């Protein structure tokens, strides 16, 4: 049901999927390619006009040569919203997409209605070890992502075609471009106060890539934020606990959480 299109945004052609009606919701994807067929997205599209974006450099979106860190995407997303005539949106980002969403919310607070961060990249918590995602094979990486045994086995045992491996390598290179030298934003303790949008932070309690302690860091530093920790879940709550994650997002966007909880 999602429509796939390649759109000229600023200086690059970007891959965007759109579906649904209602308030605009822009999804900033993690380091993998967007899979528009998962139920999490179709449910989001029941109440919102949803834009699923492959960040430039990832998936089928062209690379922006000068983009070297997550905050550099701020200009692309400004162009993106202008392109679709979107004044203010609900911004939902996962993992590196969550980091990019955060950077945008810091620099463009007037364009973000609500912010949803699902296991975002970018925190540093003293004493909490973050594994090096790049320093391991397929099995090692899958174990950092999935807590669900079935999904984990599937990810380890899948025989990828050469094209799929090439796509994965491309995405990994795009991710490394952003986080190789430093896997967090050291300025976040100062900058996060500039996030003004109501923010919902969702975290899998068993996230082995970015441990759940990171969620507390974000919750403490983003003033209008609520934190929802999902039990028995790894780095991809929207895949492992699709319904629960969806319910949290929908309830948050429909203001079912009291302001006092912020």
């Amino acid at each position, binding site marked *: 049901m999602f429509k796939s299109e390649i759109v000229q945004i600023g200086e690059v052609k970007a891959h965007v999927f759109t579906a649904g009606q209602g308030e605009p919701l822009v999804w900033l994807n993690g380091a993998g390619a967007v899979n528009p067929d998962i139920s999490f997205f179709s449910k989001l599209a029941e109440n919102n006009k949803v834009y699923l974006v492959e960040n430039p450099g990832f998936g089928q979106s062209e690379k922006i040569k000068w983009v070297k860190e997550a905050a550099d995407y701020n200009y692309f997303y400004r162009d993106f919203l202008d392109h679709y005539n979107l004044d203010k949106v609900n911004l939902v980002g996962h993992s590196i997409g969550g980091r990019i969403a955060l950077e945008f919310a810091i620099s463009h607070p007037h364009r973000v209605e609500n912010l949803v961060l699902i296991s975002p990249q970018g925190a540093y918590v003293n004493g909490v070890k973050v594994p090096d995602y790049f*320093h391991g*094979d397929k099995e090692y990486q899958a174990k950092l992502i999935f807590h669900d045994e079935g999904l984990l086995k599937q990810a380890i045992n899948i025989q990828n075609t050469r094209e799929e491996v*090439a796509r994965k*390598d491309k995405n990994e*290179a795009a*991710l*490394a471009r952003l986080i*190789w*030298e*430093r896997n967090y934003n050291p300025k976040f303790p100062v900058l996060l106060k500039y996030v003004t949008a109501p923010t919902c932070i969702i975290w899998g309690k068993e996230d082995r890539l970015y441990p759940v302690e990171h969620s507390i860091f974000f919750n403490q530093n983003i003033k209008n934020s609520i934190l929802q920790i999902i039990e028995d879940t790894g780095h991809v709550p929207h895949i492992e606990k699709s319904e629960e994650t969806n319910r949290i997002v929908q309830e948050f966007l429909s203001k079912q959480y009291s302001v006092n909880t912020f």
Partner: protein
Amino acid sequence: MTKVFSFHLMPYLDADIEGYNQNKYDSAWVTYPNKHYDPVKGHQYYNEFLEQLEYADRMGFDAVCVNEHHQNSYGNMPSPNIMAAMLARSTKGKIAILGNATSLHSLPQRVAEEIAMLDVVTGGDRIICGLVRGIGAEYFNFRNVNPNESKDRFYEAHDLILKAWYEDGPIEFHGEYFDVPFLNAWPRPISKQIPIFLPSTGSRDTVKFAARHKYPYIVTVSSLPTIKKIYDDYREQANRFGYTAVQSQLGLNHKIYVAETDAKAWEEFEEHIRFWYKYQINFKGYQAFPPGYIGAEARQFAMEALVNDNIADMSPQEMFDKGYVTVGSPETVKQRLTELQKETGVGVINAFMQIGNMPHWKAMKNIDLFSRYVLKDIQKLGDDTELEQGDTLAGKNKEEVALYY
């Protein structure tokens, strides 16, 4: 003529084999714990290795070679220039630094200055300057350089080093990675031209870069058929840049061991080559090729090659026949190297005279027998044409240069 260099990795000669058997380590790289480095043994090893190179120099090798590696038990020369400095005063012949990993350095100026220092100390025409990007695993160590930028940094560092050596300073250098208002190297080199060598694994753009500048290209680690393809590619690129490549531009890394008989040579050598493959050059694919270090397609081929080419388990005969090693009596080694030289057309053999955990006495014996009974015959092979190095596209504008890419 064919030049024969005596190459060294200065490895650590021990490994925690029990730990490897218990799957404690993924490789000798990046995270192999440095508690396994005993500095007292290290003291002995370094001095033995220097003695080996000094002996090779005295016995008539065309150069002795050092190189840069970090945080592993495979090669313990974090700064090749320090080792070269020691050899500068204890040897008489050429010293080939193969090479400085310029992509990994924040300051290529320092590489330019240090090579110039060595050149001045040695009085000129004794230093060969190899430039390398650094092995992929080494990008995990420092974390200061994005593997996506490694290649472009390499080219830019090269340009900066040449300007530092040969242009009157102070000059401005404005690059994407290095931005220097006053490039003004003290000392300047005494040599009119410090030869540049490019050791590499065969990526096409490095081959092209070498051919464009007439730099000798040394294939570091590969199978013989691949090596031959790389040389063909170099020759073809040279034609495109308007000249015919000569043998002195092609180099081969090669492991050599000589003993009294073939059987004795293998008896003395085999455990060390297996040790090398199992416990030293044993990095995993994800370490060798961090994301962005090479293109996605090239990465896939390289990863598959790593899996398919299981040299550690080959029989001695297979290792020999496939050209990974040349081991035997002086006669066997002479014959095989002559064949290999003819087959590949190389003009430089970068000979590993010590490999893996080979102890000092064997390395010395190997250097001794090889230089007494083999070296001079190999040095006579082929012609002695040398080409002056330099950018074949110098003076062309951007559009003209683009036609070659």
